[in-house]
């Protein structure tokens, strides 16, 4: 079972590892384990992941159980660092409009954030694939929504991310956790009250079932009494 870490403290700029550009960083090693991943902004999560961060040039699947559990906040430290270093970040098919003041407060450079709303599943898959393999996109976050992504489609996206050396986060419904997927990393997310619980799903070459609980920054420290 995992441990609980306060996100506010963990995201302190003094404590978090120095950001390295995707193309220039050389993979250091720690404790005999290769550290080729992109830092997530949470030291405890880095320790959980096989590459000590988000896998480079690969797809990461996130399977949240419901909305509003802090699933997008998990990516904000990484996206903020990428945009502030001049990297382009794309949000493809986001479920709602990103609230600019909240993202700006997280440190995201808004002029480096593009929203893409393609029409239909075919255009969505095309836009994701083209952006991933373009080589000019630092990170891409896509939402499956109501569209269908078969294993073949996901394989194409994984290859495109590899070709373009792009960080790809793909949100899928919780119910897809039993479907096979070629993604390098799959994380199942659910809420445990004030915490976001992450569970790594079985993938080739990686252990499964490891859990981690992260305290949610937005969650009030002291819950008010029922207000009405």
């Amino acid at each position, binding site marked *: 079972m995992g441990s609980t870490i306060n996100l506010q403290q963990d995201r302190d700029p003094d404590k978090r590892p120095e950001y390295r550009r995707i193309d220039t960083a050389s993979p250091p090693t720690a404790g005999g384990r290769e550290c080729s991943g992109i830092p997530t902004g949470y030291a405890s999560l880095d320790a959980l992941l096989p590459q000590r961060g988000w896998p480079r040039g690969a797809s990461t699947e996130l399977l949240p159980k419901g909305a509003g559990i802090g699933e997008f906040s998990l990516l904000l430290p990484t996206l903020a660092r990428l945009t502030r270093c001049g990297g382009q970040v794309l949000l493809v098919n986001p479920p*709602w*409009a990103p609230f600019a003041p909240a993202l700006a407060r997280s440190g995201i450079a808004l*002029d480096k954030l*593009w929203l893409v709303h393609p029409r239909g599943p075919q255009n969505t898959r095309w836009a994701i694939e083209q952006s991933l393999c373009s080589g000019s996109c630092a990170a891409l976050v896509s939402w499956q929504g109501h569209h269908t992504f078969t294993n073949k489609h996901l394989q194409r996206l994984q290859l495109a991310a590899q070709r373009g050396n792009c960080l790809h986060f793909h949100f899928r419904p919780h119910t897809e956790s039993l479907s096979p997927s070629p993604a390098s990393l799959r994380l199942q997310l659910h809420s445990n009250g004030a915490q976001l619980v992450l569970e790594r799903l079985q993938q080739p070459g990686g252990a499964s079932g490891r859990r981690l609980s992260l305290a949610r*920054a937005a969650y009030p420290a002291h819950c008010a009494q029922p207000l009405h």
Partner: protein
Amino acid sequence: MLWLCIQLPTLPLEVLTRTLKAGKQTGALGVVEQQRIVARNRPAAERGVAVGLSSATARARNRGLHLLQRDRAQEQQQLAQLARWSYRFTPLVSAQAAGPIRDGDSRPACLLLELSGSLKTNGGLRALLDQVQQTLAQMSLSGFMGLGQSPSAARLLSQLPAHRRWLAQAHTVPSPQQWQQWIGTAPSKLLDCDHHTITQLYACGIRQVRQLRTMPLSEVTSRFGRSFVEYFTRLNGSRQDPVSSDHPPAQYPTALYFRRPPEHSEPLQFPANHLLRALYQQLQRRQCYPRQLHWQRDFGRGRSHSYTGAVSRAPLASQRLLALTRRQREQAAPEPVRTLRLTCSQPEPPAEEKPAEALFNQGSQALLNKLKARLGHQALSTIALTGSGLPEQTWQRAGISSLPGNGAQKCPPPPPCHPPRPNWLLPRPSPLPHRGHKLFYRGELQLLQGPEKIDGYWWQHGHHSRDYYMARDKDGGLYWVFQDLTSRAWFLQGIFS
């Protein structure tokens, strides 16, 4: 100054014979205007048909002569096309249309180019002249050229056989003495003045221009008039010789008409490529880039299909322009396409940016162009902070027209810490059902934190005052809800994703 004059005396014939069948082109042909022959081909010339003859006399001399009516609009179009092409060499291009018929003769159309600044760039005088001749041949035009220190001198020398022979093998610009010598030996009949003046010149025994030079200027003025003297001083270079300069048009409409409409969309690729290459050259000359490319496929009888491709920044090659609208063009046409049109609107000069930024943004520009071309303008957007007030007024969605610079330098520092805000905002507040003292959204909601009072501006229509709360559902999802203090209704506005 170094002016090149390209005279096109057979342009009236060449623009008309292009559409004729091969059998008719070899026969004797003549072009008439106001019942006078203005141009004829070689077979007609061999049978005694000369420029200036009346059409009745020409027919009498040659029974098989085929006469065509002059089309000045087509000539003008061809001349404009040639001028646009010449714009690649120099910004000083002057296209002069053929003059009206006077005394059975008309001044032929010509193109004047100022080349003094473009010799080095184009590999010298010889290479440049060869390029001009090759293009004239490709356009099926025949003309003769002359080089001079002023437009009037270039025009005169283009009619002088000795100068044309020299120009056919010239590699360097001649000395000023050489110019004067050629102009001096030119016959008086080549001077650009009316028949009456030429007759007067010959009546006075002035057969060559050098004889005019020996005469006092006051004498020339009294005999031939002030306008002739002005022309003569321009010819000698002692007076400025201004010509009207042509500039490529701001709009770029162009079309290709198919005599045999293609049945499928595949054969349209080649003509589309041709149109785009011409547009790209035009944009390159004007140092502009297009905002939008409009294609129109015309099926005849008033039916057509059009589509638009968006361009965010100067593309680097015509191939990229071609790729931008390839998908739309590949869509099967319901009927054979009779006309393919390409229009470019709002060409703009590129914004100045630092070389490092340009290099950095190049890949992003290409991606932006590609996404816009297939998904459309409205599918891509960005967000920006706007001000304070109600949450929906603090930000706005904006289209991506061009890329900003490197965000590492321009990004403002994050605003100071405030109460938590949700990452997602609903397009508009969604009413929440409430029964008794309970709120419901995918189950019962529990209020965790609040109220935080947020007011709209009092001067705005429908002044709002709201109490915001953070609420939680049974699965642990956090929401941003508010109660409108005017209507007392509850709404969901954001999600703490």
